[in-house]
């Protein structure tokens, strides 16, 4: 059985994935869609037939995105900036978690008898690995959600968005504070000589990462970038 409310909702959800179409645009077009459906239904079409024709007359998501993109430039960049900053936030979270994980492990490794450069090296590798795992995890989660939610869709200032961002801030704060605290313990109990050798080991590890990271990031971005959809008329 055809459900009009459901069909209109789905239609709206599909269009809301477009980065160029704002909520106000969607409201205006939804009113249009509904009036067109009423007009067509008045001529003896079933609700389903009327919906299909009305949606088709309004145009495909791709066409509408291209048309709206011409007038919604500022809006598109506001939205992109939001997601860029969200990316920075994600990086800060991943970085903080990676930092505290590495410090915790290095602290643990000194207890099992590991010393000097090896501890530092281990620290830099753990940190990098946690960073990569976090990003991969987020990527997978977004990939799974993409079917049901707009990954780069409208930004809703809802309670859950705020809660998510505040949680992120707290994680960054706690992890960074803990990361800064661990070296104090190490210096206090292992002495400057030992900590200095650890720093030397870490420096080797980070040097390696500094060589790999820019090229790895560029490769990932190339793989993730998609071809443009808009035809130039």
């Amino acid at each position, binding site marked *: 059985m055809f459900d009009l409310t459901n069909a209109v909702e789905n239609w709206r959800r599909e269009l809301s994935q477009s980065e160029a179409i704002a909520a106000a*645009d969607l*409201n*205006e*077009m939804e*009113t*249009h869609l*509904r*009036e*067109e459906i009423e*007009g067509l239904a008045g001529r003896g079409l079933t609700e389903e037939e009327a919906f299909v024709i009305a949606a088709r*007359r*309004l*145009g495909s998501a791709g*066409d*509408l995105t291209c*048309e*709206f993109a*011409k*007038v*919604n430039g500022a809006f598109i960049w506001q939205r992109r900036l939001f997601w860029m900053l969200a990316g920075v936030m994600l990086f800060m979270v991943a970085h903080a978690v990676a930092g505290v994980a590495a410090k915790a492990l290095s602290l643990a490794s000194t207890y099992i008898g590991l010393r000097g450069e090896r501890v530092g090296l281990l620290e830099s590798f753990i940190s990098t690995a946690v960073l990569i795992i976090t990003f991969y995890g987020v990527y997978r989660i977004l990939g799974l959600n993409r079917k049901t939610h707009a990954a780069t869709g409208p930004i809703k200032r809802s309670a859950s968005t705020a809660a998510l961002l505040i949680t992120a801030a707290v994680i960054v704060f706690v992890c960074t504070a803990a990361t800064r605290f661990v070296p104090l313990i190490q210096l206090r109990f292992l002495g400057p000589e030992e900590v200095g050798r650890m720093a030397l080991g870490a420096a080797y590890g980070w040097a390696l990462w500094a060589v790999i990271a820019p090229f790895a990031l560029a490769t990932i971005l190339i793989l993730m970038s998609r071809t443009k959809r808009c035809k130039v*008329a």
Partner: protein
Amino acid sequence: MAVSKELVAASATPLVLSILSEGDSYGYAIIKRVRDLSQNGMQWTDGMLYPVLHRLEGQDLIESYEEASPSGRRRRYYRIKDHGKHVLAEQKSQWTLVHATLTRLWEARPCLT
């Protein structure tokens, strides 16, 4: 007969401004008016109208306001502004000139004297 995409795009501004100069209107009614006047010859993709309206609003040719329809639905109405009327007058003379030129060409009879 369907009008080409380029011509539809080019005529969008004078069409919208002309319809709004008859009185305030909203998206669906504008589309219907174009459809009726052209006897379905001008096939607009309905959604295309809204970016056009927003562009004209950005150019200060028209303004918009929200109002509930008799059935209680919130509609965005558009009203032509003075600047829009000037632009319409300009467009009118341009289109009339193009039309007159083509008509003269197509109606030209061989001169026998």
